[in-house]
């Protein structure tokens, strides 16, 4: 009755399941202030959506959520457009390389494995780091000490690189090579994982480039709009894996969920929030890893060249 047929994933799904998933991930992303793509793609895979479609569709959806996010930062002029442009050069290179790698691995029949492995790796590392850091902070608070501030060591080797540019909005005079390298790395992540890459981009901007924190989120969102747009077009051309109906349903749920999430987030303490998010990330990563290790019921799968 409430089934809807996804045209690209080529499977019927319950419309409320997809809206609900969009809502829950939107709630979490509003509460924690994160993109949520790294949770949505595994959830879509768990529901049986082909991993390639989950990744490409997630990239498409990220355009919309990044646009609604960047507007608020733009009004506060918290976007470094020049830095965003340099990051974008790297992002374009990474996105093109990533999508072609994706298409190549897909032809070998290993794209599901590549997606799962990269998620297990990233969710495992990021979940552990977040959980570790927030639990330490919680213990520190309980013992009456103030949480230790992050150690901002100088990366002098970055200042020795050529191609120096002035970034007025970030009050920086640094080489263009590190931002381009970060851009390439994140571009590849967008292409093969469908995530916005904010969880890599934001720490890299703060600790590696030493950008002021108030422009970091806005600049990251600004450049990710263009990288995800490019990835969407490339995935549509190379893999025909972008499902706009699925993206639309996820957005519908996500927009509403994010509003409630943002309100709920204001009532919780920062450390508890991060510990909770770290735990969720770890569990999703473990589940994906579990599926790789356990012997599947059906060892054989069919790939048809005829498009239904």
């Amino acid at each position, binding site marked *: 009755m409430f089934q809807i047929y996804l045209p690209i994933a080529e499977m019927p799904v319950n419309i409320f399941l997809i809206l609900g998933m969009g809502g829950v991930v939107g709630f979490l992303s509003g509460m924690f202030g994160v993109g949520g793509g790294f949770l949505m793609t595994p959830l879509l895979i768990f529901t049986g959506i082909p991993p390639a479609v989950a990744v490409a569709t997630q990239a498409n959806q990220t355009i919309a959520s990044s646009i609604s996010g960047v507007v608020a930062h733009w009004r506060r002029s918290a976007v470094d457009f020049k830095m965003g442009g340099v990051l974008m050069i790297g992002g374009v290179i990474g996105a093109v390389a990533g999508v072609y790698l994706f298409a190549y691995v897909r032809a070998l029949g290993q794209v599901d494995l590549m997606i799962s492995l990269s998620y297990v790796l990233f969710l495992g590392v990021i979940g552990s780091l977040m959980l570790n850091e927030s639990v330490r902070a919680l213990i520190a608070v309980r013992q009456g000490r103030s949480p230790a501030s992050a150690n901002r060591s100088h990366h002098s080797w970055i200042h020795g690189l050529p191609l120096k540019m002035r970034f007025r909005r970030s009050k920086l005079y640094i080489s263009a090579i590190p931002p381009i390298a970060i851009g390439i790395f994140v571009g590849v992540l967008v292409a093969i994982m469908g995530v916005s890459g904010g969880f890599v981009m934001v720490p890299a901007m703060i600790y590696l480039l030493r950008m002021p924190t108030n422009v970091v989120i806005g600049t990251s969102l600004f450049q990710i709009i263009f990288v995800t747009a490019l990835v969407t077009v490339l995935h549509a051309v190379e893999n025909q894996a972008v499902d706009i109906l699925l993206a639309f349903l996820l957005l519908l749920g996500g927009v509403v969920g994010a509003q409630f999430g943002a309100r709920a987030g204001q009532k919780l303490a920062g450390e508890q929030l991060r510990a909770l998010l770290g735990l969720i990330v770890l569990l999703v990563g473990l589940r994906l890893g579990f599926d*790789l290790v356990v012997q599947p019921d059906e060892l054989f799968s069919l790939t048809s060249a005829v498009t239904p």
Partner: protein
Amino acid sequence: MRLAAGILLLILAALTTRGALADQLVTDLSEHQISIRSNFTGTEILIFGAVEAEDPTNLSTERDIVVVVTGPEGPVTVRRKDRVAGIWINYDAVRFERVPSFYSVSSTRPLTRIVSMDTRTIEGLGLRHIGLGVATGLSPTGAETALQEDELKIFSQALLRNKQNQNLYRAEPSGVAFLGRSLFRATVDIPSNVPNGLYTAKVYLVSDGQISDAASAPLFVVKSGMERAIHAFAHEQPLLYGIFAVVFATFVGWAATLIFRD
């Protein structure tokens, strides 16, 4: 010599007359084109007909009807997972060149009780006798390898099993019903995941274990509806579709900022 030729002619004439007088089929489909919405839950086609018996007074002949509906053929790769370094990954594969996308066989009785093994093999009757085309073994890197007989069997059985699980291959051993002595009807389920294209519905009349007549009819399957239009757009105009997806997402993102402006 002349006499011999004359006798031969007589025998031939007798044979052909007998052929003309043998049991014959008259069949039709309920529709020759099924236009189905992509979100449909499946539909069914009705195949009906009548047997014109050679000798209506002879009631001892056992007659059976077999109805086979096949979909467009194409190459299919069957991949097998294996454990490598502790995780299950797609390992080796076999590519079959001409696999019917859909295959449904319905009959009045189980096929094994109607026709001989030889006939089933020749005519491709029954799930185990579907022609799959040339098979090529593929190594994990995609290189062509020699294919052992037992491996071929394992992979073709896996193909059948997967197709049956997707409801794309099916056997209905009592899917054809006789209404009286000469009229028969069969309903064939067409599931939601069938591809577009030209299908063939073939009806066999079996008299006392021998195929005495066969008739086939084309059947066009055309999907319609919004989902089908999106699918066609994505595959026929991938660049435009990608740009459309970006513009669409941009619009939704922008609309969201207007709605939740506070």
